[in-house]
């Protein structure tokens, strides 16, 4: 087998040059929590690897900018989990990041890597959907901004072109009245790949009707899913017991779970229903309490 060409980019500009045509397609390496495992499992033989880990000075910041939070793609899960800015303004993302793997994985795995791989079980991805986050893709020639809801278009298939690098993710700040929750169901607390995960953001208006509702769910289809049928049915409605029970068919229309080594389709459907209903009930309870 031919040796892998390994190139270490020291700046963003250099990374974009190394990814640009006419150079052959390269695998981008950052924390290695996916790529190194794929290579070891024997099914993946990249011809060329571009290491972007030295780009941290440019691509690992977490800043507030014009009412939005921008998170650099090289931010690790540990950095997101402990960021004071995220814990104050976007605790949903910090909480989801803290639930990933275990400390050594969180010290290496990055937000950009979670998006680049776009596993249906990726724990950051339902949060991106629930927050309506936008992925920033840079190449030598242009910058594209794609909402994550249009980013992942099939099983581990994304709209990223081989010359593009994920540099940043931009999160609009949720309304102060919104309730945001992260639920992860796995085989154990640490080092668990999710059987089902759900990021939920929603709010009721002053009359008690659903003002908005965004539910991102993972491990329940070939891609992470924004639950549009559920939102379509409930926005503008009162969350009566009947309305909440009546949402179960919409949940089934939003997801298409399968049996795999981690879980079964039947279990996932039931957990998805329970988690969505739990969130809706929390939404009602929180509104009633205030």
């Amino acid at each position, binding site marked *: 087998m031919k*040796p*892998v060409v*390994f190139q*270490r980019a020291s700046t963003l500009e250099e990374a974009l040059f190394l990814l640009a045509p006419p150079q052959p397609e390269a695998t981008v*390496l950052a*924390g*290695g*929590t996916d790529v*190194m*495992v794929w*290579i*070891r*499992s024997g099914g993946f033989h990249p011809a060329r*690897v571009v*290491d972007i*880990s030295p780009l941290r000075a440019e691509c690992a910041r977490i800043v507030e900018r014009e009412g939005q939070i921008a998170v650099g793609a090289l931010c690790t899960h540990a950095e997101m989990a402990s960021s004071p800015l995220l814990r104050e303004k976007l605790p949903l993302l910090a909480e989801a990041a803290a639930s990933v*793997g*275990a*400390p*050594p*994985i969180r*010290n*290496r795995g990055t937000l950009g890597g979670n998006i680049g791989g776009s596993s249906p079980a990726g724990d950051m991805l339902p949060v991106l959907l629930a927050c309506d986050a936008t992925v920033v893709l840079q190449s030598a020639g242009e910058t594209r901004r794609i909402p994550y809801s249009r980013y992942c278009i099939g099983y581990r298939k994304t709209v990223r072109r081989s010359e593009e690098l994920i540099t940043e993710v931009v999160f609009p700040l949720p309304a102060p009245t919104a309730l945001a929750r992260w639920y992860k169901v796995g085989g154990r*607390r*640490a*080092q668990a790949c999710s059987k089902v995960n759900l990021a939920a953001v929603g709010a009721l208006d002053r009359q008690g009707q659903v003002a908005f509702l965004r539910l991102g769910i993972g491990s329940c289809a070939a891609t992470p899913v924004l639950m549009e049928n559920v939102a379509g049915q409930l926005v503008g409605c009162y969350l009566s017991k009947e309305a909440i029970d009546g949402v179960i068919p919409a949940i089934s229309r939003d997801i298409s779970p399968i049996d795999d080594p981690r879980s079964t389709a039947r279990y996932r459907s039931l957990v998805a229903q329970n988690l969505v209903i739990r969130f809706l009930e929390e939404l009602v309870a929180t509104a009633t309490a205030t």
Partner: protein
Amino acid sequence: MNIWMIVNGERREVDVPPMKRLLDTLREDLNLTGTKEGCGEGECGACLVLVNGQAVNSCLVATGQVQGAEIWTVEGLASSPEELTDLQSAFLTYGAVQCGFCTPGMLMTAHAYLRHNPDPTRDQIREAISGNLCRCTGYQKIVDAIEAVAKRRQTEPGEAP
């Protein structure tokens, strides 16, 4: 590719394929076989070392990525085989070592964690070692050992390495 790094305080140079796992470079090229391979996919923590102060699984790091980095392995803990650190001694005293395969990773995790949080609760210790699997001890004795070291360092400041 020629790669240099500071390993356990000494500058070392190796000539290895850049995608060679840091785990293999440590074991095969630097003869530091204290670092173990368990799962090879970042699940078990047996290969845990410190890279620039951070606890990482060396099976998930390409050697080309650690050019110029500071690396600590279990061999760097004790100044000599006769002079163990307080943490190593506590692992022996509390029976935190049975087959010993997870021990180097556990020690490196605990070593790094106690610097970050010198006075942890038992729950925090459990969370800190959640990336290190042990199939023998049931974890109690490992948590006991780490807790005892933290408590002793609180009462006897200046003892910490």
